[in-house]
């Protein structure tokens, strides 16, 4: 956090000054570790084992916040008798099909509801469409007749299932798997549990060190289970905080430039399941379930009205058929491989530099070299614009400028001070930026570019009678244009996002005003309220020192300017604060309403005593003590019967590339992960396969304070470039001795994809760990460099192959195996030869793919079945 979010870290330092204990768990000793009370180095890719061990500690010693757990989580809910755990099945859950490497989740459902999970998409489709991301917000489809045992004694209640599942994660197992000492592990257990009470809360902060794994979603799940068990969710000073790394990456998820989502986490319709408006809406509102998704019809129709205005009517299903359909994985990695295969004509890069920033840099660059045209919009001439003349592939001869057909337009972009608009930041807060100066020369905003591109496309299609052109021609595409450059008025766009009454144009004050009858329009329902009363709430700048500590009048936070989600949980079931010290939102008996420091995340007049009648669903189905109002049962999900492709509970799997056999189960790595087995995407072998010894070391990558992501906003900036001027790799003194590396000298790191050179920084901040009785060396690389800018160097992301989390299709880029050699890497063809030699030595060449299923029928070595990576319909 001190490395990548230094200004956010001021609050950690302030908490520390007031007596908080700061624990930092990280493979490498960073600037955060330097200021932490306790630093726990662990083996990369073993976080689930570590957190699972803490969960086991909590459950074994019954240290959970019992009243919270019983009332607010699904701990008491009874799971189907058919459910079988990884504990029984050597690392697989019940319902596994080794052919497709996916699960039939019907046995994971709650008792009496076994058929419900099957109503949903099958998991193969879900993996293809990253629909786990939709489930993440849509919650579960659960009927209200679930069986519960609030004594938590029923052998199949979630609490007991959890207890059995995590029983293996003993301190000894944690120590030997993660490479931490038992003593230190228990210190963390004690600190976390002792600080999680009525009076105290513990916060958990993570970043892409958790998400960028083949089991990334389950990393977060493990944290969520622990925080729910300890009563830390929805309470001040608690929670799970994702520190996001780009100014508006939260915004670009809310208003998603993502293939599987529409604004407000509505799903992009898929061709199979969403053939009608109703089917599409039902996929979100889960008929029969409780909670606020039951109003998905209003959110969905309002979005269609915002886009197609008067053309969207009840008769034509509000132009639902204008939406294109997805049919599978259309994620960025799939698309890049399609570029290599010649299937994509044109590509826009909008402030993003995949030649350096995405996994498997070579695949990125070869893909871009095989397009009809490429439009790069950026502040600088980044590597993704100049790949055709200066990429590593030009040096190796894999890209020859005279033979590279891609037409490139480098369009200069306006900077953050040269345009107005909102970012949505890590705390879901929208903050408006004023325009300070006009952009110079040809620099233009994305708003300008896309508005005018749309205008020109519509002009070209004007008069077309082709049905396919209707969505473009009927699109609402008229915004006031300002100034000499004719920039669209960003606030007018924000008004459309906010939503309005169609008849009067009045901005909506809250999404509960949205209707499903076409009388309201609104581009992104969760942002409704940002233009409440026609006032730009995101531009509010009431000084912090003139407000209370919640500072609700600075910017605007979705939803409804609520600063802490699920804050109903900050009060006990009767609506009283758990303690005075941790009072946040509570029920005011006198006024008969919820009140407190924040906007209550609950129907404001629904008393804690409210109980829905039998059979009541939707918002009315949420009881007065159900704080998790977006979940189908109103409860926090310790066990997740739906929505996760790799299992209802987190399980330790080894990273796809690991020098170790999974010490806990026969199943080596995530069996359901998304793979693209191709000759240009080799994965290093791992046990039980031979050849892993060729890549004996573990590497991980991350950021430096002084740089920003792929370097497009730091290597071209002198003040930052000089602070970290060269690519380097951090090596422990022990590994330096083993490999003959000198501090300040050169080395190169080799994987089955690439050889990357770097200066050597020998440092005791890198710790060799004892894992499963032997020593493992880990090396760390920053990934900021490329061929452009004031300071150049090899790109760490070139080392990575493409292997994805099955739920959200995010790549495993935080861990891989490698070799480290002294001196600079060979250049030109010799660099390719070196990598090829490593592929051959490790056995990953020809048609050989690394096996994925390593236990049970169909496992590697079993004659039956196809255990290789061909499953999942990737090809």
């Amino acid at each position, binding site marked *: 956090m001190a490395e990548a979010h230094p200004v956010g870290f001021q609050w950690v330092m302030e908490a520390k000054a007031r007596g908080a204990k700061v624990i930092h768990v990280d493979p490498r000793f960073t600037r955060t570790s330097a200021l932490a009370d306790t630093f726990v180095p662990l083996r990369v890719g073993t976080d689930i084992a570590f957190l699972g061990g803490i969960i086991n500690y909590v459950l074994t010693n019954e240290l959970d916040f019992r009243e919270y757990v019983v009332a607010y989580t699904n701990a008491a809910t009874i799971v189907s008798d058919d459910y079988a755990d990884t504990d029984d099945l050597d690392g697989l859950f019940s319902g596994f099909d080794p052919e497709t490497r996916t699960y039939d989740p019907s046995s994971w459902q709650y008792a009496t509801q076994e058929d419900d999970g099957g109503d949903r998409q099958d998991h193969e489709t879900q993996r293809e469409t990253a629909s786990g991301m939709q489930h993440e917000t849509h919650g579960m489809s659960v009927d209200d007749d679930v069986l519960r045992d609030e004594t938590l004694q029923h052998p199949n209640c979630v609490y007991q299932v959890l207890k059995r599942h995590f029983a293996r994660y003993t301190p000894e197992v944690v120590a030997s798997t993660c490479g*931490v000492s038992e003593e230190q592990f228990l210190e963390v257990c004690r600190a976390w549990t002792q600080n999680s009470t009525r009076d105290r809360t513990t916060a958990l902060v993570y970043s892409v060190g958790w998400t960028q794994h083949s089991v990334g979603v389950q990393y977060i799940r493990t944290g969520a289970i622990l925080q729910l068990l300890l009563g830390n969710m929805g309470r001040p000073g608690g929670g799970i905080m994702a520190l996001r790394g780009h100014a508006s990456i939260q915004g670009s998820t809310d208003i998603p430039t993502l293939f599987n989502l529409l604004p407000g986490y509505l799903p992009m319709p898929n061709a199979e399941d969403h053939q009608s408006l109703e089917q599409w809406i039902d996929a979100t509102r889960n008929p029969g379930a409780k909670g606020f998704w039951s109003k998905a019809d209003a959110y969905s129709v309002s979005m269609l009205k915002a886009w197609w205005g008067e053309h969207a009517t009840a008769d034509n299903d509000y132009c639902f058929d204008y939406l294109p359909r997805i049919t599978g994985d259309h994620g960025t990695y799939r698309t890049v491989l399609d570029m290599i295969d010649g299937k994509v004509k044109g590509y826009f890069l909008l402030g993003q530099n995949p030649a350096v920033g995405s996994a498997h840099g070579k695949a990125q660059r070869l893909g871009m070299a095989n397009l009809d045209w490429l439009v790069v919009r950026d502040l600088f001439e980044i590597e993704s614009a100049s790949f055709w003349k200066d990429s590593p592939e030009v040096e190796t001869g894999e890209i020859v400028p005279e033979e590279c057909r891609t037409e490139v337009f480098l369009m200069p972009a306006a900077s953050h001070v040269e345009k107005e608009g909102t970012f949505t930041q890590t705390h879901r807060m929208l903050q408006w930026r004023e325009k300070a100066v006009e952009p110079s020369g040809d620099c233009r905003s994305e708003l300008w570019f896309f508005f005018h591109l749309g205008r020109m496309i519509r002009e070209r299609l004007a008069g077309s009678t082709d049905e396919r052109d209707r969505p473009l021609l009927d699109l609402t595409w008229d915004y006031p244009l300002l100034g000499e450059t004719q920039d669209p008025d960003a606030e007018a766009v924000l008004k459309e996002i906010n939503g309005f009454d169609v008849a009067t144009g009045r901005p909506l004050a809250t999404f509960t005003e949205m209707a499903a009858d076409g009388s309201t329009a609104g581009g992104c329902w969760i942002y409704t309220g940002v233009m409440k009363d026609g006032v730009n709430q995101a531009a509010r700048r009431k000084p912090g020192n003139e407000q209370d500590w919640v500072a609700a009048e600075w910017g605007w936070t979705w939803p409804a300017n609520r600063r802490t989600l699920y804050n109903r949980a900050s009060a006990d079931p009767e609506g009283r604060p758990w303690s005075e010290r941790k009072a946040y939102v509570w029920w005011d008996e006198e006024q008969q309403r919820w009140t407190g420091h924040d906007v209550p995340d609950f129907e404001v007049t629904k008393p804690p005593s409210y109980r829905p009648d039998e059979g009541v669903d939707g918002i009315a189905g949420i009881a007065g003590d159900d704080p998790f109002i977006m979940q189908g049962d109103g409860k926090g999900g310790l066990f997740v019967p739906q929505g996760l492709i790799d299992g209802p509970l987190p399980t330790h799997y080894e990273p796809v590339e690991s020098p170790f056999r999974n010490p806990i189960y026969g199943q080596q790595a995530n069996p359901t992960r998304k793979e693209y087995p191709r000759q240009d995407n080799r994965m290093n072998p791992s046990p039980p396969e031979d050849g892993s010894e060729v890549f004996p070391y573990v590497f991980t990558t991350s950021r430096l304070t002084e740089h920003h992501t792929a370097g497009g906003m730091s290597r071209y900036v002198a003040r930052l470039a000089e602070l970290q001027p*060269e690519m380097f790799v951090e090596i422990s003194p022990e590994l330096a001795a083993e490999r003959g590396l000198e501090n300040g000298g050169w080395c190169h790191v080799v994987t089955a994809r690439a050889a990357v050179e770097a200066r050597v920084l020998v440092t005791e901040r890198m710790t060799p760990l004892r894992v499963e009785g032997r020593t493992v060396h880990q090396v760390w690389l920053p990934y900021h460099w490329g061929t452009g800018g004031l300071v150049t160097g090899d790109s760490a992301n070139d080392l990575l192959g493409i292997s994805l989390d099955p739920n959200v299709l995010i790549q495993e880029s935080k861990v891989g195996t490698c070799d480290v050699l002294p001196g600079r890497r060979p250049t030109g063809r010799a660099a390719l030869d070196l990598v090829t030699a490593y592929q051959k030595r490790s056995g990953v060449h020809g048609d050989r793919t690394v096996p994925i299923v390593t236990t049970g029928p169909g496992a590697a070595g079993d004659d039956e079945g196809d255990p290789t990576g061909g499953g999942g319909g990737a090809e």
Partner: protein
Amino acid sequence: MSWTISENSFWGPLDPAADAGYDEDRPKRKGFFTDTSICIGCKACEVACKEWNDVPADHFDMTATSYDNSHSLNANQWRHVAFIEQPKRLVTEGEGQDSGLRGTVDLGMPTVPPTGAAEQLANGADDRPDFRWLMSSDVCKHCTHAACLDVCPTGSLFRTEFGTVVVQDDICNGCGYCVPACPYGVIERRKAPDGAKNVGIAQKCTLCYDRLDAGQTPACAQACPTQSIQYGDVEELRERANKRVEQLHEAGIMDARLYGNDPNDGVGGTGAFFLLLDEPEVYGFPPDPVVTTKDLPAMYKHAVAAAGALLAGAAVAFLGRRP
């Protein structure tokens, strides 16, 4: 108005702005208290300083000295963050077989150690928790007795009403006398890059004199995310620093000590002083700096006879200048 040279004008406690002729309306002496125990080494201070003062970037080489790539304070580096990696103690045989190769992995940080550690720490550095990554943002000390100022023959270096020491780049002729005079090696003439402003002129931290004049905080302190760099009245900062040391000592961090806060030290105390977690040498500070003009008064007595000649010389020098 005072025609006499103060007893402490060259040595000992002194209010330097008063000594430099500023009247009683002058602001209180301003300075920095840099609490290195909460420095996160982000280098925001270095960047904010360069952005405000238009200090050029001129070196793009990795030093392989931890994360320190700005080398030292110099003409193009008015703030400099030092990174010190302190090794773990050696593992004795039989230790540490469980948890790692270097024995315990409990890398006790400069924070609250386990019970009893305070006593251990008090007994000597050998038992200090093993590995530390110390970070510290260095800057011109704005000495009470500033030798750079006293040796400056042109009057370019001067004492401001805030008690700080600033180079007037419209006066400096680049003679360089100030460079060896500084006991900390702070001040330097700018040699590069070509085309940068003030090449040849002596350069160092001004404590953002222009910002102070407008009632603002110096750029580095304004940016510092953790308030490791604190700006304010020196008197108040010294009190705050003493309290912070007490607080750390109570928490068992017996290594905490102040550097530069003592008006009785060799430079009369500094306007920019530090809380350190180890000996000054560890951070690259001289352990016992002494103002190089300490003996000027004594020399002065012997030089009275030459005063007239000196005066004449000065008059000639200034007659040659434009008014």
